[in-house]
């Protein structure tokens, strides 16, 4: 019987897999996509120090290959069933039933679909992109101009798209979008020095080490303008520019601003599979639909179901830094449980 079945091979699953392997556990890794790496594969650089995201992925690829950890790709988990003896049967899209002592959920998050905030015009206006789209453009080192070849003079970032928003059903903060906007705004200034960059925010949450310093750099060195006001709607002008409507709440005046490109800072949502786990084994989820840790401080990897553990952003939005740490602690929690 498998000791640990790890669901998801993003950085959380990979980090936990390496650690569990080192402690001599028999592990299997399941991945719903055609390759390992998860969301981080789509990023260009990581905040706050600008580390190349591809380095992280290739590091884990090497680690996994060196240990010859068995990985099932294109395998989607359809249900986790707890047996009377306390072990688990995990059903998948492959018609294989995995029998295991513990399950480690490392399914991460899915990105908010910006089309749901129709008032911002994603997929309606051609120069509205998401933070994820921009990251791909950076990674492909595509020319920094609009698709129609026109140069960029002014761009704006809208924070909290699909986060802290009752209207999209996500009341929680996605944590990483503030610092991501700062990172991307700086990158835009580096690529196009003459571009004017605006960030529209409700609150700026620079919670991690080095984040506040990055925010300060954005103001001081790059002249990025931060305006405290939530954008209410966006309209396209005849020349395909975008008119943004907001209130500068610190000046207490509404205003309109025309920009060439608009970047929506999309948040994180719980994976659809979490609901399947909830249904099949009674896993407890928080109001945010992410998995509820058993104990927030002392046992954040355990869940209400004995033998089911979590690693990474399946418990809520986490940065790469936080995800890796949470995955390492997951390996310890699972090992301790198996030793009992």
């Amino acid at each position, binding site marked *: 019987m498998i000791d640990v079945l790890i669901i998801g091979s993003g950085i959380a699953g990979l980090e936990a897999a390496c650690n569990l392997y080192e402690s001599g556990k028999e592990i299997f890794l399941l991945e719903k996509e055609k390759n390992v790496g998860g969301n981080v594969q789509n990023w260009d650089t990581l905040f706050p120090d600008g580390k190349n995201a591809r380095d992280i992925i290739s590091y884990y690829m090497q680690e996994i290959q060196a240990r010859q950890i068995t990985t099932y790709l294109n395998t989607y988990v359809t249900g986790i069933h707890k047996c009377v003896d306390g072990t688990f049967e995990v059903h998948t899209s492959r018609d294989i039933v995995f029998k295991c002592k513990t399950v480690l959920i490392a399914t991460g998050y899915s990105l908010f679909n910006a089309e749901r905030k129709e008032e911002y015009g994603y997929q309606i206006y051609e120069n509205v992109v998401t933070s994820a789209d921009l990251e791909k453009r950076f990674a492909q080192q595509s020319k920094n101009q609009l698709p129609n070849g026109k140069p960029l003079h002014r761009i704006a970032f809208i924070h909290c798209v699909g986060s802290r928003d*009752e*209207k999209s059903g996500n009341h929680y903060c996605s944590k990483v979008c503030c610092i991501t906007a700062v990172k991307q705004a700086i990158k835009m200034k580096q690529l196009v020095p003459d571009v004017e960059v605006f960030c529209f925010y*409700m609150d700026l949450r620079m919670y991690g080490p080095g984040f506040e310093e990055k925010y300060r750099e954005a103001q001081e060195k790059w002249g990025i303008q931060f305006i*405290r006001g*939530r954008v209410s709607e966006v309209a396209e002008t005849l020349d395909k520019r975008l008119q943004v*409507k907001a209130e500068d709440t610190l000046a*207490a005046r*509404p205003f309109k601003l025309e920009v060439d490109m608009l970047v929506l800072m999309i948040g994180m949502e719980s994976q659809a599979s979490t609901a399947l786990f909830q249904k099949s084994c009674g896993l407890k989820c928080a109001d945010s639909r992410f998995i509820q840790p058993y104990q927030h401080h002392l046992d954040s990897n355990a869940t209400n179901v004995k033998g089911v553990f979590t690693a990474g952003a399946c418990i809520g939005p986490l940065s790469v830094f936080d995800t890796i740490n949470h995955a390492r602690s997951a390996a310890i929690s699972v090992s301790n449980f198996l030793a009992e």
Partner: protein
Amino acid sequence: MKKFGFTTAQSRSIDYDKVNTKLIKYIIENESSFSTCISCGACTATCSAGNITHFNIRRLNIQIRLGKYETIKQEIDKCMLCGKCMLVCPRGINTRNVIMLIKKGLTTLDLSD
């Protein structure tokens, strides 16, 4: 407030010990969502009345919290109750009901200190 080494001109400062909270309490009792406002200003940005007048619905919240009713009385009639502010509010506040409660509170409550 006790003096402790620095002074602020009284006409410039807010005295939280003396704020008249009658209207804010009445609104929150009847529309508790109003207490969740984070002053993001989306309501003001989209406001039909705010496009053509100085009406600022976000600022009303602050004025009511500070018990400043004099200006509200004139301001509140600029609202056309179109409800666009309700559509954009990220906290899901029933702003139209808030406006109705302000109107009702101003006419039916005894708001004297």
